[in-house]
């Protein structure tokens, strides 16, 4: 704490300055250059490096987002948007209708039904995945024979493309010819209508999503566990802390920064988990397993003419819900002293 080394001594700097880089005589007469200009002239290379990323992000994130918000304020559908068919060009004929789409959606029971199920689905998926992931991570954090093998096996679901897993599960779940029911049949148990009964279908889709999500939780939490210093446990043991107390007061606080991140991420992913629901049940039976995103898909890709405005409205609402969630979640973390 003796000398401030952050700034070189002024006189030395001036003495060594090359003549060409000397301060221009007139610069003080026009006043000091603005902060922005100075920042630009000092960091122009940084800006130049960042520019392509900014442009690309603007193109692939910003434009669709802005377009989606705009469409949600119009009555655009497939038959009135601008389109080019071969040599023919048909101009757009849709109108801006303001917030009509939003009032229509919010007044409709369908949205609230789907929202309730989407929240249920997200909370149960994330909760179960987190609990299982934590349990397995704690197990695999001990020294035992074949640990690497177990670890690799548990990561396996992550290595298989999601749609392949989902199709495999669909074969397992088939009520008439599926393996699950064949096994139950062997045990003398009646066939379970895995995907044909609304309640069972909900349980089934959650199970598949948990299966797909556990490896991610496991890896993240295992990393977190390994960053907790062993001395803490030793000290606690010396003080006579029980295993539960050690878990409660060392492991959980030590994992907090990792777990808060993975919970936030997996909440957002699960909320928008299109492939599992769509490929497994197509939202069925009826619409009992349909979450908000699969419904938005139905509006814009299944109905004819495709309802772009309606689907965008749902999309914007999903975005708002997730943003609200992220803000509230961050606030609550900040209160606990976490910063990310």
């Amino acid at each position, binding site marked *: 704490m003796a000398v401030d080394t952050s700034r070189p001594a002024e006189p030395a700097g001036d003495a060594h300055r090359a003549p060409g880089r000397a301060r221009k005589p007139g610069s003080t007469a026009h006043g000091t250059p603005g902060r922005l200009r100075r920042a630009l002239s000092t960091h122009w290379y940084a800006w130049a490096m960042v520019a392509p990323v900014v442009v690309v992000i603007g193109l692939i994130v910003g434009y669709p987002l802005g377009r989606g918000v705009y469409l949600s304020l119009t009555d655009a559908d497939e038959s009135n948007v601008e389109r080019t068919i071969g040599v023919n060009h048909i101009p757009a004929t849709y109108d801006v209708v303001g917030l009509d789409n939003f009032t229509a959606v919010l007044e409709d029971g369908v949205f609230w039904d789907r929202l309730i199920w989407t929240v249920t689905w997200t909370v149960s998926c994330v909760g179960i995945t987190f609990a299982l992931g934590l349990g397995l991570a704690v197990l695999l954090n001990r020294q035992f024979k074949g640990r690497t093998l177990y670890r690799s096996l548990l990561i396996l679901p992550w290595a298989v493309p999601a749609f392949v897993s989902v199709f495999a599960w669909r074969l397992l779940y088939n009520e008439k010819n599926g393996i699950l029911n064949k096994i139950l049949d062997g045990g003398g148990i009646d066939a379970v209508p895995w995907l044909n009964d609304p309640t069972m279908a909900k349980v089934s889709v959650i199970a598949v999503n948990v299966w797909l*999500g556990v490896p991610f939780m496991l890896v993240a939490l295992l990393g977190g566990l390994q960053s907790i210093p062993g001395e803490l446990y030793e000290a606690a043991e010396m003080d006579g802390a029980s295993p539960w107390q050690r878990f409660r007061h060392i492991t959980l606080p030590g994992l907090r920064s990792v777990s808060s991140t993975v919970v936030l991420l997996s909440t957002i992913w699960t909320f928008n988990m299109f492939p599992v629901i769509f490929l497994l049940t197509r939202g069925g039976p009826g619409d009992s397993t349909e979450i908000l995103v699969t419904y938005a898909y139905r509006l814009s890709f299944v109905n004819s003419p495709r309802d772009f405005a309606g689907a965008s409205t749902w999309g914007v609402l999903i975005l708002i819900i997730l943003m609200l969630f992220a803000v509230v979640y961050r606030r609550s973390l900040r209160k606990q002293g976490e910063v990310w």
Partner: protein
Amino acid sequence: MRRGIAATALVAALALAATACGDGDDKKQNKSSGEISGTVTYWDTSNDAEKATYKKLAEDFTKKYPKVKVDYVNVPFGEALNKFKNAAGSGGSGAPDVLRAEVAWTQDLANIGYLAPLDDTPALDKQLDYLPQAMASTKFEGKTYGVPQVIDTMGLFYNKKMLDEAGVKPPTTLTELKAAAKKIKEKTGKTGLYLRGDDAYWFLPFLYGEGGDLLDVKAKRVTVDDESGVKAFAAARDLVESGAAVTDATDGWENMQNAIKNGDVAMTINGPWAIEDTLGGKAFKDRSNLGVVPIPAGSGGQGSPQGGHNLAVYAGSDNLDASYAFARYMSSAEVQAKTTEALSLLPTRASVYNKPEVASNANVKFFRDAVDKAVERPWIPEGNSLFQAILVEFPGVLTGKTSPEDAAEAVGKAYRKLLKDDWK
């Protein structure tokens, strides 16, 4: 979970790449004079049992027009409409020149402007030879947007041996069907009927059988929630509840075909497109074991929907002349006779029915009569979407979770929302 994002990014990147390089195709602008040349990309939606025959026939087009190259692509039926819209809507790169479009898609695609009108083009020849019902499905706002390729409707497929064993005759009404199913259960231990619960098309015979309809297009009125609609849902539910039928809310096609092919059920409701596939099952090693009779009647008589496929030409095709010629060829009497012979599909040309090899096919003869009585579906752009609302309610009704009244009301409500203001 994380791969969700990666996959999205990948799809986005591929889409960009596809649009960037999609325009450099090798299709040559066709000169109006002289012989037709170029490439015709044809999207066929026929099923696994049918596609080899169609591929062969499509490629035989080059025998007539040696300078034309046919690019045959089999697109699964369930994905074809979306794929076509995606391709055609994004400036047309990757869209086919000719599409085999289900009858309900024709008006939808014509409404958006994706299809070339075919009136006064070589695609439509000997128009009067086409069955009038088939021709009706090609019209939109006074113009013709398709060439009828096949026509179909539904009937009751049954396993002759199983019905003989149970000592019952093929049922003609739903009441007889229930009685027959009960006897089949007693005698053979098998279920009477497989009723698909995951496709709204399979609801239509019940609706028409009660004398109802989805819409009254002329009066612009939604009719599915009338008394007949409620009765139709009730009739379908009764079959499942009484044990006469089994059903599924997912994988219905696969489970239905497995069930009839393996002899686990005695009857299914299906159309001519399933004949070839069904005959491939072990229960039908003796092909004559498969019988087809008209759909069992409800309280309002027998009724089944008219279906089929039209050949539609993409408005943005680089090679319209070759596309018209190809559409004409694929629906010519000669090609239709061949698909009938190989696959028992129903021709759309009246003259083909007189050919000896067609006239001697019992299944075709049967379905020909059935088509005459089949109910035409509403030929409107939203025709295909009408199925969605039914599909949401149908499984609930079949499993007893939704009452027929609630289901009919919900479907009616969804239709009014879909069809907008000028419908009642």
